[in-house]
């Protein structure tokens, strides 16, 4: 249902997240994941199972960085004056609009990693339940229904 609100301005002044709209960020992100996969598969000699580790590391890291840490990346800068102190990075992204291509990309990446992890190695060798839990937690955290929702008041302030 369309909301009768003003359209957001084209310029996002939120310095914590407007770099995500720069060109090349998606490629950089994917290459980061691929680089970590190369490293782990070199250390373990099992490229298939390495995807599981990449998926888990990616899950934990992105959960912390996107859905746990709140506020501005430059707390001394007076431009925002604490406007975003209660919002996680995921909520601040794209001027708090959902359904943008950025958000779609960042939602598809954990799913793609999950598929790679489950297909990479025989399901008897890998912690399948853990993979599933991680991808479900990430998907639920990115849902618009959980915008500004803090379950049991965890991480509210």
């Amino acid at each position: 249902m369309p909301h009768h609100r003003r359209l957001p301005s084209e310029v996002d002044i939120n310095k914590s997240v407007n770099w995500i709209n720069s060109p090349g960020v998606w490629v950089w992100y994917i290459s980061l994941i691929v680089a970590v996969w190369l490293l782990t598969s070199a250390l373990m000699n099992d490229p298939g199972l390495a995807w599981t580790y990449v998926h888990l590391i990616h899950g934990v890291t992105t959960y912390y960085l996107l859905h746990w840490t709140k506020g501005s990346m430059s707390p001394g800068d007076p431009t925002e004056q604490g406007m975003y102190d209660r919002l996680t990075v995921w909520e601040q992204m794209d001027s708090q609009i959902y359904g943008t291509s950025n958000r779609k990309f960042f939602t598809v990446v954990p799913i793609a990693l999950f598929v790679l992890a489950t297909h990479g190695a025989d399901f008897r060798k890998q912690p399948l339940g853990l993979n599933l839990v991680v991808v479900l937690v990430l998907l639920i955290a990115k849902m618009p229904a959980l915008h500004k929702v803090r379950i049991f008041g965890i991480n509210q302030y």
Partner: protein
Amino acid sequence: MAKGSGGARASPGLALAAVAALAAVLLVSRAPQPEVLQQLKDSFMQEDLAAVREFLRHPTLAKARAGAVEFWEIIGPGGRLHPGWFLEHKGHIVIEGLLMVIIVVMLLQSRFYPRTTEDEDALTDKEIDALCQEWEPQPLVPDISEEDYRPEPPLVQSREGSCYEVLVNGQPALNLACADFLGLGNDADVQRRARETVERYGVGSCGPRGFYGTFDVHLELEKALAQFMGQEEAIIYSYDISTIASVIPAFASRQDILVLDEGVSYPIQQGAKLSRARVHWFKHNDMASLEALLQRIEEDERRERAPLCRKMIVVEGVYAKSGDVAPLQQLYSLKEAYRYRLCVEESHAFGVMGERGRGACEAAGLEPGQVEVVVASMGTSLASVGGFCVGHHEVCDHQRLCGQGYCFSASLPPYLATAATEALAILEGSRGQQLAEQVRRTAAALRQQLDGTPGLTFPGGPSSSSSSSSKDSSSVESPVLHLQLTPALAAAAGSRKAADMLLQGVADRLLTKHGLLLAVPRYSALDHVLPPPSLKLYVHAGLSADKVPKVVAAIREAVKHVLGPLVKGN
């Protein structure tokens, strides 16, 4: 990320280290070497080992272990409920199909604002249509309602000699609505100096302080003010009511807390609004209410684990809307206890209150520097235009870039700066000190002699009921006197307009019959708390000791004439 917020106060670096450790554990998840195990076993004391074995043989623990083993036999690989069957028979396709469906649905979504709980009462389309149907255009400037209408104020046509003798509506009168407390606007030296400055620099300064608008006379005035107030530095603004409205936003922003007295004047309220800070109000001059408020704020902060923010209390030395003095000693001890800054606006106290005329802070016994920010107008005792702020070097230096009125307004015209410097020199000298002393004594005498006029009450009087007056005798010396209607009379009058009209009647009678010009103050509709309707009288150097009995008699007569019938009726 904002440090100190969130339950886990780990920095990203620490988190990455933890992730690295986890990865290391996963990668190196092999059982320890047998030699290592042997070493561990040997290093244990034999008694400890026996105690541990005894603990492990505990019956409850054994039962728990048996239960866990049974559970794993069912759920784990090979068990009845293990997802193995599901997976053996290509069950993974179901999960992947589900994920594909989720991806496709998501990719087909368009952009939207998420619905938060605050949106619950957004209007539906039908309601919006209905509202649009009913809408009728209103005039841009609505007519003044009867209730807001007030008659024209008296027109001062000319000065006759001193600024205190004026011609109003064709009638000579003593101007008791003039805030030039020491009469320095009349002073020949001040006027001569101003004339000389006009001949030297012209009239305007043609620029803000940061762009060719700083003259040596500005720096001279700032130095003189700082030296007079015993502070490190001073900064001057070119418009007196925008001084405090610039100082407050310079020291408070969206994340900060401001605590304001309810009786502060409109410029202070505007400054607080402009700062976007969270504003809290406490009852006028009520220290108990202030302390309760400060405690409540502290508790809220502790509960929310909010990051440290700036906190400031803003009061006036002598309140322009009520004429009483703030209990500054108690305020000082409270602000020290709760670690707040204090900002005191001394426009109506500067030049009058205190031993040397430094203001209400000095009168309350505070040392210079104990109050962080002191602001005053130069339009009162200094008989000039503009305002100033004194304080530590950091306080003033910060305002040179963050004081909006300083950076973005033209600087004070040089002749007004020299006039103020000259007036300050006079104030510092013996004549100024005598005048200040005289004003204080006159104010006290006036209050004492007007006390008990039927129908009138005023804050700061000997018999007034303000909560701080018992301890603070300096309220009787304040040069701003508001003659308010007693509550009974105000109630009898009915509306505020009726009360104002009554007081206007008193003022008119005082003007026509007794040659005294007093004002009925008019307040903005946006004012936070309106004071009771009053007649305002400024005590100044033109009200010499011999004139006091005449003024008192005049006021009593006018009050009796206009308000008498109402008072008797009660």
